[in-house]
């Protein structure tokens, strides 16, 4: 049924045949199955959907823009479709297959109850512009989640609509701009620590701010003295990640926040690492004015191969009036009111505007709410506790074979940071990471944060068992020893994955972004 795989082995390849032991005609290796492109399999006259007869439908009301021929899009029957995507799925690593220690990304188990809940018809099959009285349950989800996000962070309000973490950053910075403009105090500088996620400076620039970097201290934290010295009438605010990207708690955040406020600025906290402190520390108590919460990290909505995310932004009392539309609020009679452009004039007059169509990521809200209610107050506290315990266990089980730049100073938070110091000459973090693939793991975050040479940021999360961690630690020890000893095989890893190292330079130099016959 499937087309012949064009990348498979052929006798005619002779000496050019891939050198991976036993050759097969298909290039399949038993359960490791190659899959051609959709465009090599299907054609536009094949379909996996049956429709009533459409010949004879009068199309004259389409007018002059009607097309003459059907679009050139290949179709497949249902069994072919199921097989195509099932075979492709098997070329992916995923949390469901094993530990996924990607630092700063919080790849934890995705509860299946949350999938079931998101598909309940009252959430999945309602239109965003239905009359408000027909969607009280859906608005109730938004309000209930908003309530818990506010309580968990000790903040005043929350903007629910941002569609991902970076969108949330933008929302927070736009609130800051709007607040400054309302005060008639335009400021154009945002201070960003050099260890920040790349999205922070990109967002600040996108929101029209000038970005200035703040150095880190040798112990991996923001240089408080340098930061406070830079404060002044041109500084709109700071963006700080806490816990930071070195896996450390920013002990001085409250001191920094007080200084920023005294200088007339605002504090944005990147909440990407909230998983380390949920249920234990409330950013609002540390003087934070705005923080996005990646629901796909801390509250475990699935990453889906790169989205969709969801990035609600909790806001301080000072910034809440400026939060974007739409805005939901519970009324005195218990009903939930949706404030859109129509009502904003009277009920939310300082809103800085709208960040997207409709109400944001409803499908993520339902999942996150189910997650929060499932864990409850005790469970969430255990989440951060176990996440930090697992990271420290990895740190202390590996710090004799891998350099841990900040390991000597004390415990880490939810992620353990290592460097490539001590590897044999010519061996890099990338080699170790690719070796992990052969061991059956997804690599950790590599070369980030930028402040550590050859950084390896390991975030095991709380949903790993001790036995699972022990096996991972064993694999890491083995790889660290091979990198230190200069095992050449490591430099060409992975050897056992569906693909060997891919030529990224070629991809960028001669971009092929679409299939051409």
């Amino acid at each position, binding site marked *: 049924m499937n087309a012949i795989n064009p990348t498979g082995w052929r006798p005619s390849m002779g000496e050019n045949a891939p050198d991976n032991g036993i050759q097969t005609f298909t*290039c399949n290796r038993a359960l490791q199955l190659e899959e051609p492109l*959709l465009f090599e399999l299907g054609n536009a006259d094949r*379909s*996996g*959907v049956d429709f009533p007869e459409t010949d004879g439908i009068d*199309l004259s009301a389409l007018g002059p823009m009607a097309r003459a021929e*059907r*679009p*050139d*899009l*290949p*179709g497949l029957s249902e069994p072919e479709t199921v097989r195509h995507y*099932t075979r492709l799925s098997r*070329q*992916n690593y*995923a*949390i469901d297959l094993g530990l996924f220690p990607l630092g700063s990304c919080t790849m934890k188990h995705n509860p299946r*109850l949350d999938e079931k809940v998101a598909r309940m018809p009252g*959430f999945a*099959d*309602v*239109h*965003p*512009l239905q*009359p408000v009285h027909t969607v009280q349950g*859906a608005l109730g989800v938004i309000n209930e989640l908003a309530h818990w996000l506010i*309580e968990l962070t000790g903040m005043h309000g929350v903007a629910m609509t941002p*569609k*991902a973490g970076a969108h949330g950053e933008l929302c927070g910075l*736009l609130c800051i701009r709007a607040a400054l403009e309302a005060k008639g105090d335009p400021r154009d500088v945002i201070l960003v620590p050099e260890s920040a*996620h790349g999205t922070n400076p*990109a967002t600040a*620039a996108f929101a029209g701010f000038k970005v200035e970097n703040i150095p880190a201290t040798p112990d991996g934290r923001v240089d408080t003295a340098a930061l406070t010295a830079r404060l002044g009438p041109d500084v709109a605010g700071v963006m700080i990640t806490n816990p930071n990207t070195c896996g450390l708690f920013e002990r001085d955040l409250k001191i920094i926040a007080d200084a920023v406020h005294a200088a007339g600025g605002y504090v944005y906290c990147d909440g990407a690492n909230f998983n380390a402190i949920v249920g234990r520390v409330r950013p609002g*108590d540390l003087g934070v004015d705005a923080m996005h919460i990646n629901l796909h990290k801390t509250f475990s909505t699935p*990453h889906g*191969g790169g989205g969709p995310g969801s990035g609600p932004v909790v806001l301080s009392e000072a910034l809440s009036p400026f939060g974007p539309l739409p805005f939901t609020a519970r009324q005195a009679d218990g009903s939930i009111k949706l404030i*859109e452009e129509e009502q904003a004039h009277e009920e939310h007059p300082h809103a800085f505007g*709208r960040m*997207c169509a409709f109400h944001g990521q409803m*499908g993520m809200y339902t999942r996150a709410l189910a997650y929060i209610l*499932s864990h*409850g*107050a005790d469970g*969430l506290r255990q989440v951060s506790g176990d996440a930090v*315990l*697992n990271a420290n266990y990895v740190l202390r089980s590996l710090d004799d074979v891998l350099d841990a730049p900040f390991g000597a100073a*004390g415990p880490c938070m939810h992620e353990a940071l290592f460097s490539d110091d001590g590897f044999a000459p010519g061996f890099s973090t990338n080699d170790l*990471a690719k070796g992990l*693939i052969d061991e059956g793991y997804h690599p950790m975050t590599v070369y980030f944060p930028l402040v550590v040479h050859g950084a390896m940021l390991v975030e095991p999360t709380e949903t790993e068992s*001790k036995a699972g961690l022990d096996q991972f630690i064993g694999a890491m020890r083995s790889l660290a020893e091979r990198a230190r000893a200069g095992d050449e095989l490591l430099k060409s890893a992975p050897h056992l*994955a569906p693909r*060997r*190292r*891919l030529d990224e330079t070629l991809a*960028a130099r001669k*971009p*092929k*972004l*679409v*299939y051409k016959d």
Partner: protein
Amino acid sequence: MRYLPLTDADRSAMLSVIGAGSIDELFADVPAEARLAVPIAGLPNHATELAVERHMARLSANNTTAGSVPFFLGAGAYRHHVPATVDHMIQRGEFLTAYTPYQPEIAQGTLQVLFEFQTQVARLFGTDVANASLYDGSTACWEAIAMAGRVTKRGKAVLSGGVHPHYVETARTMAKFTGDVLDTSAPVLEATPDDDALIAKIDAETSCVVVQYPDILGRIPDLAKIAAAAQGAGALLIAVVTEPVALGVLQSPGSLGADIVVGEGQSLGVGLQFGGPYLGLFGCREKYLRQIPGRLCGETVDADGKRGFVLTLSTREQHIRREKATSNICTNSGLCALAFSIHMTLLGGSGLADMAKLSHLAARKTAAALAGVPGVTVVNSHYFNEFAVTLPTDARQIVRDLADRQVLGGISLGRLYPQETALANGMVVAATECTTDEDIAALVSALKEVLA
């Protein structure tokens, strides 16, 4: 707690390896005054799966679902039938619980899907290339405007009155902060969009003209004419498609000369979901490749010479370029792109055309039936699956009254344009292949009752 595998014995053993006496000790860096001494206020302790499911089911039941009543809502979100295969495939854990494919050797599944998705979008839109998706149609629309500014080095965007008002508001929000000038207007309830008036707004400062196709009232502008005028003045034409099924029977915007085509992919595979997550589609001419926002997947080879796919041209992106990136975007709408792609694969070109024809047929029948209701006038001369009507009184109340009769009959223009009194009696009505003759009869009879 069912999601946490560590036992107390595990915890003790691990703490002794670490050399700490308790988990709390690991939080030593948190200043004492910042540590929460008490549980989160009001939040109960952990709950069983059954209890949570019941709670959520109660909230779910407190909504009128689209599938349970005659349903005619559109305006950027459409209810099409999604084959069962789509949801089964996207729930495979290898797709659902994978991350962004930064390690391509073990992410070829996601990457090949994205490459196929990009090709499907490019062919649907008639563009040379497409990206791996953005958040939704509204943010894709703004990204296109920002990109046109980078390409033309001009700062004024002309938006047609037919662009979805939420898209306009999203752009307005962003433009306030970037300094771009937006020339916007509300639509006029006339049978065809005034393309000439739009063209008259183009001047030497114009970076782009933004035209929705079909527009918010369901009318179908002449993109070729607008493209020629825009390009003649050195501006780009951005076409916005909020209902991609329309392209099963309408000419693609790219083939009509659009330089950038953006859209909302929700109507294929994704479902209504109360507005999100949705799927931003983005295609354009190849010459603007290095200005495209968001992720791109490209073909390459591995060390053995085998074909493979990687995320590419990342030198445009924030994790490399930081404050100089083309956009701050760090995600795409991966799982929604997968759903879109699977649905499109099941349909194929002929299936998409069939679905479009059936949606159009349902809209024609609905329009004909509504035209027979006293006091109702169908505005459009041409449309795909959505059209505007005028009613004798404010449509906001009529929509609510219809809902009280268990009919979701349309979207009032008053909700979309609260400041525009001239539109207050207008309503947009959409139909799809899901719409039945019984639905149409129920709408007509409820509307007669409401207007009586």
